[in-house]
C-alpha cells in the first residue's frame, strides 16, 4: 500500500481504545488507558503531557517496541491494517520503511560501534533490497536533506564523533530513509540545547511541509507543539484528556489541567509588562552596595594530558568581570559549553580560577587561608543541577539539612539543630514526615527542596543556583522558581542564577549575563535585554526559545539560524561568535570586540551593535 493511493487527508494512523499495562512484581500497573487518536496525511499531531503520562508508551506499543512484560489491548490501525498482534515479520516490514521513529537521546539511540553511514545504508538495503553502494548514496543524499554539513565525511564517522544536533539529524535521516508515511518523534529535542532544539524543530516543520507525511510529535514542551503541530492531544495519567486544533487547545483550553499546563509553560514576554516576580525588586533598582565582584576571571583546563609533551589547554572561561549588589539577582545564560557552570564554581572557589580575582564583601576569596574561606562559606551557598546526585545517598533528609549547622555552628545543641532543621524544611514546603527518609525515596522536586533547605539553613547572603530546575518537570520547575523568588524577597539575599532557560531567568532575575564559549557577550537589565537585545547571539538565543503560541511560533521557527558552537578547544579568532553570526564582517575575524558600555547599565561585546 503506497502513499499515492491514499486520498488527501486520509487517516494514516488510528488508535482506538488502546490500553497498556505492565506486569510487575507488585501487580499490573496501568500506563495508558483507552487512548483514542488519529493522524492524517500531511498532518502533525502533538502529544503533550508530563513524564509518565503515557505518551511514549502508547506509540511504542503500536510499534511492538515495549518490553515483554507489557500487556496491550485495543486497536492501532496503520493505513487500515491492524498493528496490534501483527506478526513480527509484518511489523519489521513496516518499521523503518512506512513508519519512521526518532528517539529522545541521539547519543544512546544510535548504535555506538557502527558508523552513521552504515546505519543509514543498512535501513535502505534492508527495506528496499538495493545494493550497499546504492544504500550509501541514498544515505548521503538524506544527510544533505536534513542539512548535515559535510555529509560525505559524516558517513564515515561514529555517533560519538558528532555533536548532539548532528546526531539527532542523523537519526531523523535514518527515520526518513524509506520515505515513511508516518514519522513518530519521541521527545526529539529534550536532551539538546535551546538553539539546537529550535533547529531540529524547524527541520521537522520543514519536513512536514515538504514531504507531506503524517507526523506525531511527542513532547512535554508546549512551545515545540505550538511551532510544529496542527492538532494537539493532551495526556495525563495514561488518558487523553483533551484533543483539538493547536490554536484552540493552547489558546482556549477546556480542561483545567491543560489550562494549568499552558499557564506554567515558560513564556517569553519581551513586549509585555514585566512579570510580577521581576517587578518585586522594582524596575529602577536603588543604589546598593556591591557584594560580589569578579575581575578578569579566567579558567583553563588542561585536556588530553600525556606523560610527556604539553597538554592542550581548554579555555572554559575567559576574562569575565561582573558585579552583584546585595539583594540583587543576576541570571547567566548560554548554551552548554558556554562556561556557565565554570563561572559558578570559580565564583565559589570550588574551582580555582587560573587568573583573576573574586571579591566577596571586600575579601578576595582566592587569597584567603583555607580555614577562613571555609568559615566564609556560611554566606555563600549553592544549589545544584542534579537534585538526587547532590544529596549523599547514605544520609537521611534530616541529616543532610542539619549538616551545615554541624560544620558552621558546632556550638548548637542537638535540640536547637533539630528545631532549625524543622523550621527550614517547613519553609521550603517539605512535610516533617520526610525528615527520616533517604533521598532515593523522594521525587526530583522534593530532592531539590532538600537541596534548597540545606543551602538556606545557614541564612546565606549569596545563593548560587546552577541549573537548579533543568532536571525537573515543567510544573515542578515553576514551583521551585516561585520558592526561590519568595526566599529572595524574604531574606534579601543576592542570587546568581544560571540556566539555559531564558524564560525562567526572565522571571527571576533583574540583570542577565549572556555567555558564549566562556566569553561575555552581553550584560544588562533583564527588561531591556529581552525587549531589545544588542548582541546577535542574544537575539539568536531569544529567537530559539519555544513559546507556546501557535500564532507566533511557526514564524519564529522559520527564522531559526543554522550553525553549532565550535569546539572550545579551537575557538574562532576575533569574535568567538562570528562563525555563526549572520552579520559577521572581516573585522570580526581579526579583532576581539571590546566590552563596551551602553547607556550606563548595559554592556555588549560586538563590533556592529550600533548598526544592527
Amino acid at each position: 500500500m503506497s502513499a499515492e493511493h491514499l486520498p488527501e487527508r486520509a487517516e494514516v494512523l488510528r488508535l482506538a481504545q488502546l490500553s497498556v499495562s505492565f506486569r510487575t512484581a507488585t501487580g499490573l500497573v496501568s500506563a495508558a488507558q483507552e487512548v483514542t487518536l488519529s493522524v492524517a496525511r500531511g498532518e502533525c499531531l502533538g502529544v503533550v503531557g508530563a513524564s509518565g503520562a503515557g505518551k511514549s508508551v502508547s506509540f511504542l506499543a503500536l510499534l511492538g517496541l515495549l518490553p515483554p512484560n507489557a500487556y496491550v489491548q485495543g486497536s492501532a490501525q496503520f493505513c487500515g491494517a491492524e498493528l496490534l498482534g501483527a506478526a513480527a515479520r509484518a511489523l519489521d516490514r513496516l518499521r523503518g520503511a512506512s513508519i519512521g521513529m526518532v528517539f529522545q537521546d541521539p547519543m544512546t539511540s544510535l548504535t555506538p560501534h557502527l558508523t552513521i553511514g552504515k546505519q543509514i545504508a543498512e535501513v535502505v538495503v534492508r527495506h528496499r533490497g538495493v545494493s550497499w553502494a546504492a544504500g550509501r548514496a541514498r544515505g548521503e543524499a538524506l544527510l544533505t536533506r536534513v542539512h548535515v554539513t559535510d555529509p560525505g565525511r559524516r558517513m564515515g564517522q561514529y555517533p560519538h564523533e558528532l555533536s548532539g544536533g548532528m546526531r539527532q539529524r542523523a537519526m531523523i535521516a535514518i527515520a526518513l530513509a524509506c520515505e515513511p508515511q508516518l514519522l513518530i518523534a519521541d521527545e526529539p529535542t529534550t536532551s539538546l540545547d535551546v538553539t539546537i532544539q529550535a533547529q531540529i524543530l524547524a527541520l521537522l516543520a520543514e519536513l512536514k511541509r515538504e514531504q507531506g507525511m503524517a507526523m506525531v510529535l511527542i513532547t512535554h514542551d508546549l512551545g515545540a507543539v505550538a511551532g510544529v503541530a496542527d492538532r494537539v492531544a493532551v495526556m495525563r495519567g495514561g488518558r487523553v484528556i483533551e484533543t483539538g486544533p493547536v490554536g484552540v487547545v493552547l489558546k482556549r483550553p477546556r480542561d483545567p489541567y491543560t489550562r494549568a499546563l499552558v499557564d506554567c509553560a515558560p513564556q517569553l514576554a519581551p513586549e509585555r509588562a514585566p512579570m510580577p516576580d521581576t517587578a518585586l525588586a522594582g524596575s529602577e533598582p536603588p543604589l546598593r552596595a556591591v557584594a560580589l565582584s569578579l575581575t578578569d576571571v579566567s579558567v583553563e583546563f588542561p585536556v588530553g594530558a600525556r606523560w610527556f609533551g604539553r597538554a592542550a589547554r581548554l579555555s572554559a572561561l575567559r576574562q569575565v568581570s561582573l558585579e552583584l549588589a546585595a539583594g540583587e539577582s543576576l541570571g547567566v545564560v548560554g548554551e552548554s559549553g558556554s562556561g556557565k557552570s565554570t563561572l559558578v564554581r570559580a565564583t565559589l572557589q570550588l574551582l580555582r580560577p587560573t587568573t583573576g580575582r573574586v571579591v566577596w564583601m571586600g575579601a578576595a576569596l582566592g587569597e584567603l587561608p583555607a580555614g577562613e574561606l571555609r568559615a566564609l562559606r556560611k554566606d555563600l551557598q549553592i544549589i545544584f543541577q542534579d537534585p538526587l546526585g547532590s544529596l549523599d545517598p547514605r544520609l537521611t533528609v534530616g541529616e543532610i539539612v542539619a549538616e551545615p549547622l554541624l560544620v558552621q555552628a558546632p556550638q548548637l545543641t542537638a535540640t536547637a539543630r533539630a528545631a532549625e532543621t524543622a523550621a527550614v524544611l517547613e519553609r521550603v514546603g517539605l512535610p516533617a514526615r520526610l525528615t527520616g527518609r533517604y533521598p532515593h525515596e523522594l521525587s526530583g522536586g522534593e530532592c531539590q527542596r532538600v537541596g534548597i533547605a540545606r543551602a538556606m539553613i545557614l541564612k546565606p547572603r549569596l545563593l548560587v543556583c546552577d541549573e537548579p530546575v533543568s532536571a525537573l518537570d515543567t510544573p515542578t520547575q515553576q514551583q521551585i522558581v516561585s520558592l526561590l523568588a519568595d526566599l529572595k524577597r524574604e531574606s534579601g539575599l543576592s542570587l546568581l542564577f544560571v540556566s539555559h532557560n531564558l524564560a525562567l531567568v526572565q522571571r527571576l532575575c533583574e540583570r542577565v549575563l549572556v555567555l558564549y564559549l566562556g566569553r561575555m557577550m552581553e550584560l544588562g537589565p533583564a527588561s531591556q535585554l529581552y525587549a531589545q537585545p544588542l548582541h546577535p547571539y542574544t537575539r539568536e538565543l531569544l529567537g530559539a526559545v519555544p513559546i507556546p503560541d501557535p500564532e507566533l511560533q511557526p514564524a519564529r521557527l522559520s527564522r531559526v539560524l543554522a550553525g553549532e558552537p565550535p569546539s572550545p578547544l579551537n575557538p574562532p579568532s576575533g569574535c568567538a561568535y562570528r562563525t555563526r553570526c549572520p552579520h559577521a564582517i572581516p573585522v570580526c575575524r581579526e579583532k576581539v570586540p571590546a566590552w563596551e558600555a551602553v547607556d550606563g547599565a548595559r554592556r555588549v561585546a560586538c563590533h556592529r551593535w550600533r548598526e544592527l
Partner: protein
Amino acid sequence: MLRYALRRIGGLIPTLFVIVTLSFCVVRLAPGGPFDQEQTLTPLVRANLDRLYGLDQPLSVQYGHYLRGLLHGDFGPSLSQRDFTVSELIAQGLPVSVVIGLCAILLALLIGIPAGIAAATWRNQGADHGLTVFAALAVALPSFVTGPLFALVFALTLHWLPVAGWEPGAPRYLVLPVLTLALPVAAHLARLTRVSLLEVLRSPWIRSARARGLGGARVLWRHALRPALLPAVSYLGPALAYVVTGSLVVETVFGLPGTGRYLVQGAIDRDYPLVMGMIIVYGALLLIFNLVADLLYGWLDPRVRHE
C-alpha cells in the same frame, strides 16, 4: 586504529623492563643462596662456584650482566640442572605448556561465549537456569580439585582416557588437562557474556534498531553482540593468568613435561636464572596476550581508540 595499536605496543617495552628489574630484586633480596643445601661443599669449592656463576660480584654488576645477556636472548645457565642452560630448559617445556594453555583458552571461548549468548537469548528458560547453576559451580571449583576428580572419574573409573603422561601428537593426553583449565574460564565467560548481552539488549539503541525494522537476528548480531562482548574481552587477560597459574597444578596432576615444575622446583633450589627466565617468559606472554585483548577491545568499541 593503527595509531592506537602502535601506542599500545610502544608501552610494552618499559613494562617489560620493570618486570625484569622487579623480579630480579625480589629473587635476590630473599635470604639463602643456590648452594646452601649442599652441605658437603667446602668453603673453597663454594667460593669457586660463586665465582663461576658471577654470584660473588656486586648485585648491580650482576644485574648489568643479566640485562646484557637478555638482549641476546640468553637467560644464563641453570644452577640446579647444571648441564642445561635456562633457554634449553624453557625451549623443552614451553611448547607443551603453550599448547595446553592456548587450547584451554580457545575451548573456553568456544563454549563460554555461545553459551552466554544462548542463555541471554532464552532468558529465564530451562537452559538459562541450567547454565546459571552450572556456571556458579564451575567458577567455584579450583583446578586442584577438578583435576584429580576428572582423573578419578574419566581415567581411573571409566577408563576413557589416560590418567597421566604425554605423547607428542596424541590428543587423548590433552583432553583432561585442557578440560580442567578451560572449565572455570568458560563458565566465567558465559556469565559475563550473558549479563552484558542482557544489558545491551535493554539499551536505547537496540530499541531504535528494532524500530528501523531490522529484524531479530540482525539486531542481535550486528547491533548488540559487539558491545556485549566487551566484558568478556577484558576478562581475557585475567583468564590467561588463571590458565598459566592453573597449568602449574595441571602439569603436576597429569604428569606433563611443561615448564610449571621448573618454577616451583627452581624457587625451592634457589636457581636464580631459571626462576628469572620463567618470570620473564611468562610475563612477556601475559603482556602480549593483554595487548591482543586491548586491541580487540579497541576494535569492538570505537570510543576507546580516541582517548
